[in-house]
């Protein structure tokens, strides 16, 4: 039962609970009209302490398409946060008005502070370079709908694996399925953090390799998860400029990949996937974005305890 729960990181839900959310998302995709009044009278608070268009729009669209309403702020300077209010106090106040809250924050663990402060369900919509579990739901739903499941697959994660929170969340989530292998493609400076390597991959005996070459990895992959090198995560701009163009996926490189491989990207992209790749049927990133809205609809309904 997911009613009243939080989603702060992918492991908060069991595999069967995840399946429950994905099954509901599939039903919504199949007949969206059936759900247009599912959340009538319910209010979602979107607390975005960091700029975001797609995640915020995705959540707002999800709630509005369910018949619910949305309040919130999209940058902290327009709220009491600018006056120095703590996260805990902001959330306690919001809980007086809303039925559930979505939080994005530049600091890692901020949604956990929020969840500790209230009994209202809190959804982590990205906390710094840490976790982004609803993006993971989006990624998993897209893999499930295109490959049919998560077992016996090789997943390549490419780009900024250090600050790429979507990668951390995805590895965490996929580590629970049988025979998933990871090929982690990044420059030395942007390798996955220790806690992902030690606590998730090594601890669970998951097969993985860390490599530099995208070309060498491509033929082995069932899923290629591309990420953007994020300017906002660097303290030093020189490092960003040096690393930002390390990997660019183009038509020529796609020829090295399996016909059945899918390309995912949490978006927005800058230049790590050439626009020419968009017409390749294996490019699934815009389908993925649409799935994001549907899976968030399923999540909102589940946390509010609305049957569907």
């Amino acid at each position, binding site marked *: 039962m997911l009613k009243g729960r939080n989603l702060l990181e992918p492991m908060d839900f069991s595999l069967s609970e995840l399946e429950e959310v994905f099954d509901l998302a599939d039903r919504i995709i199949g007949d969206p009209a059936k759900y247009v009044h599912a959340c009538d009278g319910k209010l979602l608070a979107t607390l975005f302490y960091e700029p975001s268009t797609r995640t915020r729009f995705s959540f707002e669209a999800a709630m509005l398409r369910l018949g619910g309403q949305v309040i919130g702020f999209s940058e902290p300077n327009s709220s009491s946060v600018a006056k120095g209010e703590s996260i805990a106090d902001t959330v306690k106040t919001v809980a007086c008005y809303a039925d559930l809250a979505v939080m994005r924050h*530049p600091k890692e*663990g901020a949604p956990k502070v929020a969840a500790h402060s209230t009994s209202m369900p809190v959804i982590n919509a990205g906390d710094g370079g840490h976790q982004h579990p609803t993006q993971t739901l989006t990624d998993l739903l897209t893999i499930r709908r295109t490959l049919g499941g998560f077992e016996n697959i090789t997943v390549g994660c490419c780009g900024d694996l250090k600050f790429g929170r979507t990668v951390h969340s995805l590895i965490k989530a996929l580590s629970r399925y049988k025979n998933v292998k990871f090929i982690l493609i990044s420059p030395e400076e942007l390798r996955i953090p220790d806690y992902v390597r030690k606590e998730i991959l090594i601890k669970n005996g998951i097969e993985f390799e860390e490599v530099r070459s995208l070309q060498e990895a491509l033929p082995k992959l069932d899923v290629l998860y591309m990420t953007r090198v994020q300017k906002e995560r660097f303290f030093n701009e020189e490092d960003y400029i040096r690393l930002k163009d390390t990997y660019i996926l183009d038509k020529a490189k796609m020829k090295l990949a399996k016909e059945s491989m899918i390309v995912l990207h949490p978006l927005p992209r800058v230049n790590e996937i050439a626009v020419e790749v968009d017409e390749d049927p294996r490019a699934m990133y815009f389908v993925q974005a649409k799935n994001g809205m549907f899976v968030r609809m399923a999540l909102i309904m589940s946390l509010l305890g609305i049957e569907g």
Partner: protein
Amino acid sequence: MLVNSIEKGIVIDHITAGLGAKILEYLDIDLNTNTVAFIMNACSKKHGKKDIVKIQNVTDVNLDVLGLIEPNATVNVIENGEIVKKITLQVPETVTNVIKCKNPRCVTSVEANAPHIFHLIDAENREYRCEYCDEIVSMKGAY
């Protein structure tokens, strides 16, 4: 060197030489008001050298702090000049407000009232994970 025994209080013995000052710092004992003997580099049959801390009239020190920094130390509680209790230390599973997260991206760097919570992930290497940002710290080193 002669240091008098204490009538009532606590003796923390077999501290790895060099760690005594760190223990005093983490125990947060007020050195202005308490009577404290801190012996550095005392002779030890087992380890060659050791540190010893004696605190008079204080018996309720934070054992989690001791287990975190020096789980091999021995703790003797003294009453009327006699040892009334020997405490075996354990590496604590969770510590709250003992160590601070050094990750500048962690929410605890901006949310003043959030408790600093760390969970044990590797007892042998005394590695802990921050509740909020998952940063790993080792208490075996010079944290």
